[in-house]
């Protein structure tokens, strides 16, 4: 498939504060890419650069090969759904959806048909005359989507499209949103700080941290082969255990804990032989054992969180830190002395260079 939207080394600073640093990303035609990151990671700035509300200090934005970096937003033909929707409160639903049709060159005669068709596409047929203020949050969100899609934009941008809905509504709206976007087949870039949302909506997910793209890939890739320590800890649940890196041939590498216990491990980044490393382990990649078992790290269960047939155990490992372990619901109780081992058949824990700051 051809690349429809391409960001090339986008740089943007506000004052002396760099917000995006060399962000490059390709979105293929009809692909949905989620821009995932914690607040302050610069994801909204990236979206606003793409939309044209901000101008990059350096870098280019291309749509189907055309450079739109200097094109004002009103001539980019991008549709955007705003976080709080920004529906015009003084216009009806129909007037809101029709707003972008005139600039897009759609004749007055064709406009009502297009409005009707677009509203029907978001399950709001017949809502033209309603006031936007009398709609529910979910309906407002769909009007915002319809308004963005009505002029048939080249790219759809969504800024935290579900953050304004209450949690019970979010699941359903998320599926509807995905269905509409897929039916229209529009190239989509959307911003979110919720992993679940990114994984469900996005064909691919781009993780942004401190203005840098840390990894772009399928949800599975991000979870199983995180490229950086940040991605490893940000995506999914995990514990970080400090250890010393003992390299070796593939499959023979290990991490050594104080007291000489070694666990087989894989290198997630460049770590120096014999140097300190952060071992990132998923709860399901750990198992509980007796404290005396060989290769087990001894500790005490400090917390148990029940989750149906299984439970999450927080184990205070002596001299190392806390580890979260997934085990059967009756495996231990707070106060128990236990040992923690890598689970059999689980992916290897991954070692990353320790974070300079922490």
């Amino acid at each position, binding site marked *: 498939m051809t690349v429809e939207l391409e960001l090339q080394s986008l740089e943007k600073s506000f004052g002396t504060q760099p917000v995006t640093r060399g962000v490059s990303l390709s979105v293929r035609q009809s692909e949905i890419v989620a821009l995932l990151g914690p607040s302050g990671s610069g994801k909204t700035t990236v979206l606003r650069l793409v*939309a*044209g*509300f901000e101008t990059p200090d350096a870098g280019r934005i291309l749509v189907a090969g055309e450079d739109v970096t200097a094109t*004002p*937003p*009103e*001539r*980019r*033909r*991008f*549709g*955007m759904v*705003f*976080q*709080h929707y*920004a*529906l*015009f*409160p*003084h216009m009806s639903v129909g007037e809101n959806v029709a*707003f*972008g049709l*005139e*600039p*897009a060159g759609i004749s007055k005669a064709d406009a009502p048909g297009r409005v009707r068709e677009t509203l029907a596409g978001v399950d709001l047929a017949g809502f033209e005359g309603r006031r936007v*203020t009398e709609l529910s949050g979910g309906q407002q969100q769909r009007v915002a989507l319809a*308004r*963005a899609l009505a*002029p048939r934009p080249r790219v759809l*941008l969504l800024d935290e499209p579900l953050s304004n809905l209450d949690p019970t509504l979010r699941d359903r709206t998320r599926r509807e949103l995905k269905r509409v976007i897929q039916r229209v087949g529009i190239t989509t870039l959307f911003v979110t700080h919720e992993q679940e949302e990114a994984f469900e909506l996005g064909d691919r997910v781009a993780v942004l941290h401190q203005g840098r793209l840390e990894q772009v890939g399928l949800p599975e890739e991000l979870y199983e082969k995180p490229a950086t320590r940040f991605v490893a800890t940000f995506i999914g649940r995990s514990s970080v255990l400090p250890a010393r890196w003992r390299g070796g041939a593939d499959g023979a590498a290990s991490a050594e804990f104080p007291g000489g216990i070694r666990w087989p491990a894989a290198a997630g980044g460049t770590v120096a032989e014999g140097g300190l490393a952060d071992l990132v382990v998923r709860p399901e990649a750990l198992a509980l054992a007796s404290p005396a078992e060989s290769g087990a790290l001894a500790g005490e269960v400090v917390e148990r969180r029940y989750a149906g047939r299984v439970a999450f155990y927080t184990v205070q490992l002596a001299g190392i830190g806390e580890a979260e372990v997934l085990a059967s619901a009756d495996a231990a109780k707070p106060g128990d002395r236990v040992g923690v081992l890598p689970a059999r058949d689980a992916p290897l824990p991954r070692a990353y260079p320790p974070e300079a700051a922490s």
Partner: protein
Amino acid sequence: MRRTRPAGLLFTLLLAWLVCYPLLLTLAEALGDPNWTLRHFAEFGRRPDEWQALWASVWISLATVVLSAAIGIPLAFLFETADFPGRRVLGTLVALPVVLPPLVGVLAFLFLYGESGVVARAVQSVTHSTEPPWRLSGPAAILLVHAYTMFVYFYLFTRAGLARLDSAFGEAAASLGAGRSRTLRRVTLPLLRPALVGAALLTFMTSLSSFSAPYLIGGTFRVMTTQIVFSRLNGDTEMAMVETVALAVIALAGLVFLQKAEKRRVVSGAIRGAAPARRRLRRGGLVAAAGWIFAAVLLLPHAMLLLVSFVPPGTWTVEALPPALSFSNWGSVFSQTERLRPIVNSLWMSAVSTAIAIVLGFAAAWTAVRGRSRFAPALESLLAIPWALPGTVFAVALAATFSVRAPWAGRFVLIGTAAILPLAYLVRNLPLTGRASFAGLRQLDPALEEAAASLGASRTRRLLRITLPLLRPALAAGASIAFITSLGDFVVSIVLYTFDTRPISIEILSSLRMQETGVGAAYGVLLAVLSGASFLFFGTGGETSPSLTAGRAHAPASGSP
């Protein structure tokens, strides 16, 4: 839960006596009490000069709204959406006229653009003419002064509205392909509508009540406010009453009309997200220069006022600029007891009326909001009424009410005593302090007082330690505006003053009449400085000026439940 407490009833009666009673008495006198007759109204209807004055009041006010909007709105857009050097300072300077008494503005205008002002003299000295090139007189002159002093309402309201506007609306429009003019026409202006209607209302009402400008530079051109005062001067009391009723009706009609316009479409623009980034203009230098020139034009009259206050009496005859400057006017103002007296009068009368207005306004608001009195709507409406009616109306009504001794009817002879002006100022101040108290109390989370109560604080202690300290900025702002309004009052004073209680404004008038322009200018400067200082020290307590005036504008809106 609604409660019937004696306090609510007491305050309602007190306010009704201060606010409603004089108006009703005025209506009664216009109807020729004790024998009811429509004779005076018929007489009013027969006289073309009355109709002309009535019509003049209306069209001058409408034209003032249009002119003020034409200046204020573009200026607000310039200062709110563009970025250029000096923007912040200029943005504040431009709003300056709003805190100055109208009389000072008129005076300053006269000294600069009047027939013996600097500009006219300069033209004369170039053309070697002995006749002044123009006379600053008549409706055009009034409109000029009105536009110059009242565009600020549009300016402040539009700026405040723009600042509140979520930038996402503009961005949404742009993402839908709308260019700048389409966004402005279809999105920005409709969303600004409440602010614009508010500014139009305030401008219309202010213009309708305007007295200083028509009185000093109207010439033979009469509007209703001046017509009333002249009728009284001519001893035509009944006609003055009828005129007062007519003016009150016009004012209320305007109020109702504009409030309807405001309510016709309730727009709830989301107030979220970031303010739009200011555009750095490509021709920033040009815009900055235009801004600076505009600010200079606005401030020039006041600079003139200052200059004239230093011109010794009788030294400035035909020259374009004064040949000599000295402190003699200032010296005489501060050394002669009779010249010092108006200053002392204005200060004490304003201070007393403001203090009582604060106490009364707060007590009424407290009773209504916290006491949940059944009289709450009545209290709020009563507090708003003096705002909705021109000062002249109240002056005439109070004069009628308090020139008769009838204690059993709540009437006393206060005319000619030192009490009448502070009382009149008090009535005029009530909407300002009452509005501040109502708004402040409503914004205050009742949980704070409940928390204090649960910690064992008595009612008094809660009031003194929690409520009043938290409301201090709002009350100070209300008090500051009330004090400034009283200090510079001309319209009420000219009807009710006596020689011994004459305020600064009346002294300015007599200085002008006695050709002591320098002394008049010195008083004007003093008034401007006192007003500005009061505003800066007390009026900006945590709030910006737009919200202050906005609070003022919405005073009448609260009147209708």
